[in-house]
């Protein structure tokens, strides 16, 4: 994700955190989402921790499963960014 002012590893962390938030909001377990997205639960954990890049298929499946639009996802990322800045600033 290209969020100005945040280095790529931190961006990946924000993305992971936002995906975890979406999953928890829909009361879905990690195992459930991983199975439906065609991936291992351990890989989903690594994505949520911002440690793992995924294939295009998995990314698109995840966004579809979590029923999130681009605008909404971007809003979540910006909120997460503000929170992170608040903590560090």
């Amino acid at each position, binding site marked *: 994700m290209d969020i100005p002012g945040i280095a790529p590893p931190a961006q990946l962390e924000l993305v992971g955190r936002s995906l975890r938030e979406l999953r928890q909001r829909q009361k879905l377990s990690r195992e459930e989402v991983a199975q439906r997205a065609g991936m291992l639960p351990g890989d989903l954990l690594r994505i949520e921790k911002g440690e793992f890049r995924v294939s295009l298929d998995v990314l*698109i499946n995840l966004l579809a499963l979590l029923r999130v639009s681009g605008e909404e996802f971007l809003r979540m990322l910006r909120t997460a960014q503000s929170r992170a800045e608040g903590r560090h600033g």
Partner: protein
Amino acid sequence: MAEPPRFEELIAAGRGAVEGGELERALGLFDEALEQAHAAGRPDAADRAFCNRAAVAQELGQTGDVIPGLRRILTRNPLSETGYLAAYTLARAYDLAEDRQKANFYARIAREHATAIGHQEWMSHAHNLLGRLALSDSDFETAGREFTEALRLDPSGRPAWRAIIEDNLGYCLVVGGRLREGLTLLYRSLRGLRRSGARRYEFHPRLSLSLAQLERGDARAALRHGRAALDGAESAGDAEGVKAAYYLLGEAAKQAGDLALARAYFGQLQVRFYPDMVNLADTLLAVDAREMVNLKA
């Protein structure tokens, strides 16, 4: 008993066809070799032909259940050429089945067989496979080390083979932010494939080059390589390549400020591959997913 007449010629011609990217022709040659070996009652030769045939069929997407046969061949051919071929093909079969743990297990066995029989070229192949498995796991550091070793060990100077490894290593370097070194390797990879006439594989470095140029901020070059990658992947019938090309073309058009074109490319991606995800183009227009996506996963 001597090996059937022409058996070695058929195997050699099959391997030559693989090297030149003529996979259908290679499959036919290995089929003929297998028939000859059976007719002559030579199980050793039949095992070799079976392994070669299975490897090519895999590349062509014909994923019949070859695993039990390959396991039996591996058991009865310890530390041998055929054992190596069986282990390598098993690793590829598990890789295609997305069982990374078993794929790694057999890839390491393949490396041990190649090392034990002192076959440098196959050691290079095994390191490349281990690198690709690490790449699937988004472990770019391990992948980079394995690809570097694969290049170092490659004695053949065969441009197509080196080009495939150079593309893999170049991609790792680009993702790791080492753009200049990555670009050098990727252009070398493209030249190698052209020189050897293996046009079937050209779309791989084209995809990596499209990403690298996006990272450099050169949207026009990214579009040029993306279009060439799309044509190549379509010709090769590689759906994953086509998907990646549409995605990169959309990102490149977005970077160039042509949002209508970006929407058209993302729209093609959605219509052809994700028909149920009607808001995909909007999502990808709003979000730059480059940092999240591993195009070689």
